[in-house]
């Protein structure tokens, strides 16, 4: 997609937002001979337009980042269908023009946490041209408790700042020890965790230790700074039986509750999901490997469900996505579905609930 086309799309999505976006503001500012600093701080304002624009004092640069998630690679080489899908996603991201500022990998790179799987994944994912940030999923973790993953990709919990937005990456797949007492082997532990419909499965948590870290990390951040959190599991409670669930979600939401613009982007659910809880907007990520069915209950009201994918088309209902940040730090989310039209969930639609109707394309 050309830069002009994408900017047009973005403009369409933004048109009902109050105030001007940064680009328009700069245009106006230049036209009226007023100078703005990089942070949007207005040094001189006399016209009405510019007084209104002063609201974006803490505004950020608009930019785009991409994500790829849930590839579930098996140690069966680059010809296996899941490996081919990840390669396809990497190629698609690299073909974006202009290139996204960075790429977030959403977890579950491997299927059974094996070194061979993670090595294959590392090799393929290293092909993305933009900067890459990694997040961990339960399939990466429970064979060796994240040993190889950490060796390859570093800490699973960290934060970084990019163009005025504070990004946080969490390991949200922490579960209580179910393996020591029955003396499970590492593979038994992994298979127990890998089964989505495991009736004995344990709920994911962020855990006390990370909550403490998060609280500490956020303490240095201005409340007007937009926050984007990446978590593998949704940071809310959708359907416990399939672990579409984070057991201490409310505690994490509470830590984020004082910030003005908060977005959580999660993997694990392999489907389009939209939710809003108080100040937090939630978006799901597509899997490159396969789509999960929607849970029988708990689907958030704002979610427009994808039609059931065609099992005869291995790429249907799978894909990757991009996230366009807005000047106020909220985001427009685009699901890039292979073999379907893109599905755009704009912040305007989420905040007003308008326009969230299934279209002919998905």
């Amino acid at each position, binding site marked *: 997609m050309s830069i002009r086309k994408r900017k047009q799309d973005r403009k369409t999505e933004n048109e009902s937002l109050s105030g001007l976006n940064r680009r328009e503001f700069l245009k106006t500012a230049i036209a009226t001979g007023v100078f703005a600093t990089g942070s949007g701080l207005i040094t001189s304002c006399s016209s009405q337009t510019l007084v209104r624009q002063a609201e974006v004092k803490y505004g950020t640069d608009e930019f785009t980042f991409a994500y790829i998630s849930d590839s579930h690679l*098996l140690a*069966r080489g680059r010809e*296996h*269908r899941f490996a081919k899908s990840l390669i396809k996603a990497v190629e698609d991201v690299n073909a974006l023009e202009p290139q996204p500022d960075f790429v977030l990998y959403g977890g579950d790179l491997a*299927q059974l946490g094996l070194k061979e799987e993670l090595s294959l994944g590392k090799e393929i994912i290293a092909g993305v041209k933009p900067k890459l940030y990694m997040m961990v999923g339960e399939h990466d973790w429970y064979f060796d408790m994240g040993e190889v993953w950490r060796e390859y990709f570093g800490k699973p919990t960290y934060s970084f700042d990019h163009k005025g937005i504070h990004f946080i990456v969490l390991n949200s797949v922490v579960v209580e020890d179910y393996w020591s007492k029955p003396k499970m082997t590492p593979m038994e532990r992994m298979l127990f965790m890998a*089964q*989505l*419909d495991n009736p004995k499965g344990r709920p994911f948590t962020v855990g006390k230790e990370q909550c403490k870290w998060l609280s500490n990390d956020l303490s240095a951040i201005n409340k007007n700074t937009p926050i984007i959190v990446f978590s593998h599991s949704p940071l809310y409670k959708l359907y416990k*039986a*399939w672990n579409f669930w984070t057991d201490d979600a409310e505690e994490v939401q509470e830590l984020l509750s004082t910030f003005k613009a908060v977005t959580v982007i999660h993997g694990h659910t392999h489907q389009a999901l939209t939710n809003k809880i108080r100040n937090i907007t939630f978006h799901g990520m597509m899997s490159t490997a*396969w*789509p*999960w*069915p929607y849970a*029988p209950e708990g689907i958030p009201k704002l979610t427009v469900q994808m039609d*059931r994918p*065609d*099992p*005869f088309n*291995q790429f249907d209902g799978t894909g990757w996505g991009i996230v366009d940040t807005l000047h106020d730090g909220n985001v427009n989310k685009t699901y890039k579905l292979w073999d379907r039209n893109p599905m755009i969930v704009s912040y305007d639609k989420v905040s007003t609930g308008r326009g969230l109707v299934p279209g002919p394309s998905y």
Partner: protein
Amino acid sequence: MKTTHKMFMGLIAILMMYAASVNADNNSATNVSNVIQQSNEQSVQIVTACDGKKKVIVEGYKEGEPMPEQKAREVAKLLTALMGYCEEEITAKIPETEIAIQLSINGDPFISVTAIEELPLVLVHGGKPHTEREKRIWAAELNRMIDTGYKIFHDPTLGTNGISCDMCHPNASNTHPETYPKFQTQTKKAALLRDMINWCIENPQEGKKLSDDDPRMKALEAYIISERTGVILEPGKH
């Protein structure tokens, strides 16, 4: 159907006649026995069918006392239903207050049925109610088949590439077994559930398809159908 209907109407007429005339004699279709005093001195009337094998004991009415029309109809309906089981000797008891009817089949102890419509179920096994032991054995056998299916459904060795059924179908969701047989547009022929199971084994799982009488196929079907039983149908979503 017609015969039953005629017989039913005949019985109604006879019982109505009986109710109208306390002194009516026995007739060819229905025999009213003498007063039976039960141990609790409860008053009962006994209505016996013409074959002599079916009896309805009506509690709360003395022998010879006219029954109200509604009660008479109830007795007639029950007796008509019992007449459908020619070989069996059945005694039915209509309690005065309870809704359930008590049935004794071929001299066995009385069992409760709440509706006459349950009769075929009660009588299908020779009129003998299932024992708890039998029920447990049958449930265990059924569950064994379903459990085998569950294991195969979650086992990647059904295919060759590490993919198992549950990876796309947790709790057998999106398998919708109730919709088969149907014309499968992608394969351009009518398909049964087992055809689609085989399609999945051969395609996403890159395995070898199972024959229709393969115990693994039967177990998979048993698991899928049992898992989806009672799930709400959502037309248009499959």
